[in-house]
């Protein structure tokens, strides 16, 4: 029997997250080098569409547990069901996307199976039949090679670090159904509700990010409404106006909006936009930093971006050392002009 390389498909309400397909691509690479077959693993309720898409992206088989108790991700039934399936099918490797759920489930499945877990890798290879991974540590200030003993090897893949395969709708394969491991009354955790925050493009999955720093509030010409008189409140109001400009450029480019810690701490924009060591670590194809000086903590979160563009009034700002293109200037002039230029060139109104 050939080895199974599993790729766990993370989803929300039945809709797979894009990085799940990157896991199938990584599994294909391992299957070629180690020998074995790529098996997608799906837990949920009403997952027929996700199963078909896993075949399109290249899974040879799909193991699926389709049950009402698995409709929403919860640690207990997901860990129990996945661990049981792993004990039965003995995969050599289980890959997860490093999403919130993926990281958590990988950790707990590792504990359930007493297997080593390597989190958030950016690269891997096979040397003498062993998987050698590379992962950032100290928020990317260093890289570490990481290896795990025994089987299964549980590995979570940094989002966007591995290429997504091209889907082919003609592909299909064998579906293996496995039962849910826990009945509803054996599950302590219940989902009460979802409170969605503002929409927009997810930062970690974004191919383009337009980011703002403390500098976005630096526009003394901008007059606040008369009811805002406090110095601090005026600054926050200006900061928010600055992020409107950033948001407009982001919308034109189909980009996500990022921010430095300084901008978040000053109250210009919510924490979920923070890029850096104590925020999100991102690696988009294009990162446009506006009014961000580039403190080491911010660099830790974005230095792996492919092309970095910096707009800053201070020519000595450290961000220019990372940037491919730089503009020494006022973002209040450059960003709107850039937005107009892109609208024209990309044929948008």
């Amino acid at each position, binding site marked *: 029997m050939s080895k199974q390389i599993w790729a766990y498909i993370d989803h929300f309400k039945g809709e797979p997250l894009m990085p799940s397909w990157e896991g199938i691509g990584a599994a294909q690479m391992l299957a070629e080098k180690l020998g074995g077959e790529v098996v997608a693993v799906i837990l949920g309720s009403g997952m027929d569409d996700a199963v078909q898409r896993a075949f399109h992206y290249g899974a040879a088989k799909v193991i699926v547990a389709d049950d009402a108790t698995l409709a929403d991700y919860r640690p207990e039934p997901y860990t129990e069901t996945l661990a049981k399936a792993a004990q039965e099918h003995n995969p050599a490797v289980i890959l997860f996307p490093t999403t919130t759920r993926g990281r958590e489930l990988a950790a707990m499945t590792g504990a359930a199976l007493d297997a080593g*877990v390597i989190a958030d890798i950016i690269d891997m290879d096979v040397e003498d039949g062993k998987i050698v991974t590379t992962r950032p*540590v*100290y928020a990317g200030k260093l890289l570490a090679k990481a290896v795990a003993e025994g089987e299964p090897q549980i590995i979570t893949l940094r989002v966007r670090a591995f290429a997504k395969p091209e889907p082919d709708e003609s592909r299909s394969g064998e579906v293996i159904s496995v039962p849910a491991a826990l009945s509803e009354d054996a599950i302590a955790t219940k989902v*009460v509700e979802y*409170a969605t925050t503002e929409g927009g493009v997810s930062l970690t999955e974004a191919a383009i990010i337009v980011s703002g720093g403390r500098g976005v509030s630096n526009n003394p010409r901008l007059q606040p409404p008369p009811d805002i008189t406090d110095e601090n409140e005026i600054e926050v109001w200006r900061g928010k106006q600055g992020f409107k400009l950033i948001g407009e450029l982001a919308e034109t480019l189909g980009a996500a909006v990022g921010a430095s810690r300084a901008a978040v701490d000053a109250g210009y924009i919510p924490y979920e936009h923070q890029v850096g060591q104590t925020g999100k670590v991102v690696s988009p194809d294009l990162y446009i930093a506006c009014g961000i000086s580039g403190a080491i903590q911010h660099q830790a979160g974005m230095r792996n971006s492919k092309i970095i563009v910096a707009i800053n009034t201070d020519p000595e700002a450290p961000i220019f050392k990372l940037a491919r293109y730089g503009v020494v200037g006022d973002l209040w002039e450059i960003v709107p002009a850039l937005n107009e230029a892109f609208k024209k060139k990309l044929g948008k109104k």
Partner: protein
Amino acid sequence: MKIVVFVKVTPDTAATVKVDESGKVTWGDAPLVLNPWDEYAVEAALQTKEAHGGSVTVVSMGDESALEAIRRALAMGCNDAIRIEDPALAEDDSLSTAKVLAAAVNKIGDVDMVFFGRQAIDGDTGLTPPQTARLLGWPYIGLVSAFREIDPDGKKLTAERTIEEGRQVLSTQLPAVVSVAKDFGEPRYPSFMGIRKAARAKVPVWSLADLGIEAPAVKVRLPELMNPPKREVQCEFIEGDTPEEIAEKLADKILAEKVL
């Protein structure tokens, strides 16, 4: 309520971390601090104690340098502390650490809630909190941004947590393990009295024998640490007479990179 908060000591976020010629990690004379993510866990643990009574015990695994983190947590208001150190723990991974921490929770006994930060900024795995929950057989709510209800008598917990899609509200039973996200709210500064008390506090050290366990197997190893490849970029500064001219040139440069 009996509350435990696990913390770790890490180099300050402003530290320049490098691998030296001997392959060892150095951060110059940058200070060791309480892992920044753990500050939110300590804050959440203290708020829970303040709302429901009881005590908060801060626990850290590590050599004497861990006292930096422990004393900061004590100064913020934790009641007492335990440090876990054993020569057999020289090597560790997330699962071996979780086994030690779970044993510590069992030895402390009658614990209602265990708090963690989301991850340590050195190893950056974020695996230990859910693994500790799993090993204890307790429910886990990760990345908590707010508590809606903690009912120590009814043994119930309802919390909001941050996921990719927004906020998810989960209810579960106590005892439970939680990790705390940054949007929980700003951690407090230690008071002057707190700092004095923390400096004088005696911190007992528990060995593996005290915990009644053998050294757990370590399965994940880091055979090599490397400095990341230097970003070999020369910044091309875009100039022009008007913002429009600069924007025009910059947009063309970006389009030519074919990243849009």
